[in-house]
């Protein structure tokens, strides 16, 4: 339904809109659940080698944005290019840290097993995890300060420790673009410091990292760029220029009533007549 409403842009236009050098470029992307658009007409080009905070209120569509980039939810319209190509051709170059709540921590695996999962694509289908893979995973655990907990079943780790394990898994993916969904949620102070350190290290190595972030107090301190989101893109750019009182008011000043109304009508399937 939305497909017919929002027509696809022409091929040549797509090429123009997606600079091949950019780690991530999104062109006119709309994502809907049950026909109700959650994010509308996003245009975004990520700057190479920067730390970017994705900021917005609850229900603004921050996780949806990441999921849509990773092809985990269908797009109602629009295009996404990762390093100039479609996502499925560039899977090797993208690392992902999902929300901690998204998995069952009672699952019978230990911290090392989870980190090794980041290597599964590199190992390839049907081939086993070898000693050298475990070694790589172990090094990543060490980098996040979790080497002593490698053999521990994951439910016996604290929230911050679980988050570090997820981060280590992303590190072994050795990607060029990282997408992280609330890595700072519910972690202790020392874990927060450890994560920030890793993020800066990634930036020094020229990686681009997009982080869904909730704590407005620390945005300026941790991030170079921001993407302010509330159902639509409010503003994006260097933190010093864009992270302003005025823009925050626009982002957090409630959802746009009209967008919500239209979305509701689309859910109900009420036509204009």
């Amino acid at each position, binding site marked *: 339904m939305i497909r017919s409403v929002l027509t696809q842009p022409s091929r040549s236009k797509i090429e123009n809109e997606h600079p091949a050098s950019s780690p991530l470029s999104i062109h006119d992307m709309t994502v809907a659940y049950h026909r109700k658009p959650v994010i509308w007409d996003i245009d975004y080009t990520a700057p190479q080698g920067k730390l970017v905070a994705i900021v917005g209120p609850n229900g603004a569509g921050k996780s949806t944005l990441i999921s849509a980039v990773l092809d985990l939810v269908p797009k109602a319209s629009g295009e996404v290019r990762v390093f100039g190509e479609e996502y499925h051709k560039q899977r090797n170059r993208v690392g992902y840290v999902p929300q901690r709540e998204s998995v069952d921590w009672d699952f*019978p695996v230990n911290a090392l097993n989870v980190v090794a999962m980041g290597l599964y694509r590199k190992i390839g289908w049907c081939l086993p995890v070898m000693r050298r893979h475990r070694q790589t995973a172990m090094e990543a655990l060490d980098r996040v300060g979790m080497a002593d907990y490698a053999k521990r079943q994951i439910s016996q780790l604290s929230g911050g420790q679980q988050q570090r394990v997820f981060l280590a898994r992303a590190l072994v993916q050795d990607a060029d673009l990282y997408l992280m969904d609330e890595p700072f949620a519910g972690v202790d102070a020392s874990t927060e410091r450890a994560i920030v350190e890793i993020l800066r290290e990634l930036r020094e190595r020229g990686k681009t990292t997009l982080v869904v972030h909730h704590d407005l107090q620390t945005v300026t301190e941790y991030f170079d760029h921001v993407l302010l989101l509330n159902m639509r893109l409010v503003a994006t750019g260097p933190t010093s220029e864009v992270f302003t009182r005025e823009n925050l008011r626009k982002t957090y000043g409630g959802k746009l009533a009209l967008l919500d109304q239209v979305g509701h009508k689309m859910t109900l399937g009420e036509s204009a007549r």
Partner: protein
Amino acid sequence: MNQSTTISPNDSKRRWGYARVSVVSLSLIALAVASLALRRVMIAKEWDSNDTWTVATAALAAMACALPGVFLVMRRQSMMGDALAHTTLPGIVVAFLIAHAMQQAGWISSATYDSWRHAAMFFGALVIGVVSAILTEWVQKLGRVEASAALGVVFTTLFAVGLLLIRLKADQVHIDPDCVLYGIIETTVMDTIPNADVPRAAVVNGLVLLANLLLVAIFFKELRISAFDPAISTAMGINAQAMHYALMAVTAATLVSAFESVGSILVIAMLIAPAATAHLLTDRLDHLIAISLTVAALSAFMGHLMAITLPAMVFTPLGYPEVVDTNTAGMMAVAAGGLFVVAALFGPRYGVVSKAIDQARLTQSIIAEDILGLLYRLEEESGTAALAINQLTAMIGGRTWPTYFAVRGLASSGDVATRGNNCELSDSGREKAKRLVRAHRLWESYMAKHFDLPADHLHETAALVEHFLGAELREELAAELEDTAEDPHGRLIPPEQG
């Protein structure tokens, strides 16, 4: 989810102690039941090759089911197994109808009819597994209900369709609904493959087990990641949804193969019970699979033994000597349930008994520490302190027996010296008591400093907290309180050393 406590290495060592205890007790109970039953069987000389093949067939079927079962349980989709066991019924009926029609048309002879029918059933099951999974998703989306509600709608409807088909086409489909439910393993073993004394069902189930073992071995990594973290699995190119459909197809195919010999009730038990039991005993996926297979095989053996002995043991003394045996499949489900109960009681981490033992140990050590603390405080007041057990009991406000055992423990570790009826602190006991009292008074000072509580509110929480303040926390508290030498009641805080 948001646990802030972690378990120290010591704890996990003790837990693995429990694991050993639980495995030993599990096998002991199994052995006791088995030897009791075997003795009876031996006396009556009731065991023959039919019994052996029954157990072998049942064990192979159970193990074949246990493998996909592990992943269903780990994905928290156990109900899906139950559902598939039902939805395969219309698939089986349609397979019968197709085979019958082919025979009528003269395409296949009555000699090859059976093998055609089995092939049709097998592939029908693969299809119906995926179809039920997709249907469930549709119902969930369209009906806007939770997954288990959608499952309830889909599998009851498809099962009803299957039963209807059986009634309508009774002349072409020779299925006895009873046999579908309970299985008739005792007679299936009589149906042997040509030129050999091996039951056809044993061969079929053996092959399915082998195929499942291969699949799990080859796709272990993919099965693990798609079950644990579907989002990252799909993002990395291992489509979790596709893996889900594949698992459903394999489960359904395994179910129909095991179906005929053991019936659908048992099949559901064998799908879920071994994995659920194993999950109580281990935190490693590979061990979990191995334990599931063992539990499945053990249930088959115990189940058959119980089926041929238990009814007579129970009913003969009650005056019904004519009841001598019962359905093996049913007893296997009972045995699997029994093993689950044993694991739930003695499991290392979640076991009721091990938790109770933990709790009792903690209570005892708290009583012992309370005794030390009491003696120390009395010494502080009057120079010496020697108390009899009944006095100690009264003053710490407990009961006599726990105090008695705590004193005995303290005496044997040399923390308390007994003189006549009275006990008093030894030097090592005094050191321990000093650290406990230090913890207590540090805590009181800390609370008084930060919570602005009246002095009479401090003691009770401190009396609880003192038992959990280790050296590290005491040091942290002392640093926080800087040079505080006295607690809010004006008593000296004992130093950590000397």
